[in-house]
């Protein structure tokens, strides 16, 4: 005769399972971290930095789409405002240290994010997306017309400078580890946000906004905060990108960029933490590989086809599908 399973036992096994899963996750994160630390030995650091910047951008975007259920079609505005602010400050005031320039860029994007959010979060769904797109186009127009951005020529010759006054960032390796640190900071911040009670409310809003309201949460305030944080992180990605490439260009502000980040996030897997990172790496790498070969003409067509395929066949993206597979076959 088997003994009846007590409630305490169930709890215990569940806890154990959770712990085992956590350990697995930690191990995976550790492996990824080691890979990222060792990567510049194999791959070209500037290329890796580009991936990391776009990965941070996609992670920031995913905080809205994946965890709050808000599809912003104007995130290029934050990337660009971070990029231009940092670029302008660093090239105009040579005495300014690099980290201050980046902080200023992030702050500018955060403020802009607040302005966007105040207008946009009053509407939902397609209206929300269209309002963010319209506002982003306004920002684009501002950058085209402004003197300080250099119009369509862009802002050039931004000095990489010294981090904390003594680390020479013109060295590609030093720059890479700095970008990696910023990326990990942003990633962990999002992880923390998502795992916190605040993040639980965001997920609740995504699943059922009306019910969240009925539970007594001030939904608009939560959305506003999520939007502002997402914008700030996107600005941070733009600022760092400017320092890496030593330029800020209109490409960052174009609606095309807003679309690309959606593609990266969907492809990698919305609502997963790692998804946007994988998606960004995939898209940046694909663009790079295609631009080298005879298929150069077809970059946009191929990206479009992949997008359609993802939306139709792999709704949960690369990471989402892998997770499903693992759960089915290994769980």
């Amino acid at each position, binding site marked *: 005769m088997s003994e009846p399973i007590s409630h305490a036992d169930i709890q215990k096994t569940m806890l154990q399972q959770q712990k085992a899963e956590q350990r697995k996750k930690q191990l995976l994160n550790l492996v990824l971290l080691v890979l990222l630390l060792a990567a510049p030995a194999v791959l*070209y650091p*500037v*290329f890796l930095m*580009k991936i990391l910047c776009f990965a941070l951008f996609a992670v920031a975007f995913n905080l809205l789409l994946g965890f709050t259920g808000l599809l912003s079609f104007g995130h290029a505005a934050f990337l660009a405002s971070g990029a231009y602010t940092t670029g302008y400050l660093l090239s105009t005031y040579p005495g300014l240290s690099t980290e201050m320039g980046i902080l200023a860029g992030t702050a500018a994007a955060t403020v802009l994010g607040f302005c966007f959010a105040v207008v946009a979060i009053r509407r939902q769904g397609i209206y929300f997306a269209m309002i963010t797109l319209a506002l982003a186009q306004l920002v684009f127009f501002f950058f*085209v*017309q402004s003197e300080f951005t*250099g*119009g*369509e*020529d*862009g802002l*050039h*010759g931004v000095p990489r400078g010294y981090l904390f006054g003594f680390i020479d960032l013109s060295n*590609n390796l030093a720059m890479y580890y700095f970008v990696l640190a910023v990326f990990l900071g942003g990633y962990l911040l999002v992880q923390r946000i998502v795992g916190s009670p605040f993040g639980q409310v965001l997920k609740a809003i995504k699943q059922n906004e009306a019910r969240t309201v009925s539970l007594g949460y001030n939904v608009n305030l939560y959305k506003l905060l999520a939007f502002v944080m997402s914008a700030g992180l996107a600005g941070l990605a733009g600022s760092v*990108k400017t320092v890496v*490439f*030593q*330029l800020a*260009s*209109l*490409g*960052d502000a174009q609606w095309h960029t807003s679309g690309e980040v959606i593609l990266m996030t969907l492809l990698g897997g919305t609502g997963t933490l790692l998804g946007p990172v994988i998606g960004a790496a995939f898209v940046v790498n694909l*663009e790079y590989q*295609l*631009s*080298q070969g005879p298929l*150069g*003409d*077809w*970059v*946009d067509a191929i990206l479009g086809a992949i997008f359609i395929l993802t939306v139709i066949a792999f709704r949960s993206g690369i990471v989402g599908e892998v997770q499903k597979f693992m759960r089915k076959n290994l769980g």
Partner: protein
Amino acid sequence: MTIMKKLLTSAIASTLMVAGAQAEISNNTVKIGYLADMSGTYRDLAGPNGLAALEMAVADFGGKVKGAKIEVVSSDDRNSPDVSSSTVRRWVENEDVDMVAGLVASSVSIAVSDILEEKGKLGIVSGSAASSITNEHCTPNHIHYVYDTYPLANGTASAIVKEGGKSWFILTADYAFGHSLEADVTKVVEENGGKVVQTLRHPFPTPDFSSFILQAQGSGADVVALANAGADTTNAINTAGEFGLTQSGQTLAALLLFLTDVHALGVDAAQGIQLTTGWYWDMNDETRAWSDRFLEKTGVRPTMVHAGIYSSTIQYLKAIEATDSDEAQTVRKQMMDTPINDMFATNGRIREDGRMVHDMYLAQVKTPAESKDEWDLYKIVRTIPAEEAFRPLSESKCPLVTGN
């Protein structure tokens, strides 16, 4: 003061480098990177056919210079300074590329020349229009070969005013490129005794030009000038054709128009347009012979950019042959010291700001009756001498010229 110091140190550094690197071709290979828009708006004027022109030059040189192999790599710039700068950084840091050719979008050219200056390599810009590339953005590490906005505005506007087109209506693309073109044209028109009666700015890009063209017709100006580029220009010309702008007695002047644009428009829509070009395939036996080879290889007639890529590559390789070195400053100095006489230019000369100055041509698009085949598109109205065409060094803001 700081620029002075920077110049001085770079001069010293380059002298030292020249001394150290003399009579040596690095890795016994001359590697040329071709960077251009292969898939977007500027594909036709340079693009894959520009790569073909570059490969023709390398093949004509025998694939070798002084026993060193000539290698060509290429990449799509996606019209993005980000993409271009990471590509070029990788080329010079990891793949020992000695020279970057092509270079179309101005933002790309400026970004790339900054990197080349930092890394001490050479760039030859063939596709860009912005005259700022050898003005405020000049570096000792690049050459601007084919044309820029200064002769485009200058050549077309002064010629038309002198022919009696006194009152001008300027339709401007509302961004920096359009603004600077508009300013240049206004200056030239007024200096020659003409008058700009109205300027109108259109958003960039604009698909429908009807209302703008109607206003242009209503203005009663002798000349309607298009200070825009690419699809905006062709759209405006198409609309002007539909509204019978030139038939009603006004002159249409396009400031930036390529042979491939006119080919796409067709002579019916584009007839009578005046424009300035750096080169035309049907000018003499030499240009025709080269263009026939190009046509055979690519299926189209070359634009001035294609011809410029070929010519500049030959000049570059000749300079390496003469100096036995592929070090950027040595080669650039040799190129500056050698007058350019080939199918592309007669008495071309590279100035210290990196601007290659050569004769430009005022052309008019033929009428359907005059045009014998699909590529028989221009008649050359006037040769604009080099010294008249380009911005004089006395007006230059380039630190290499002004010395501060």
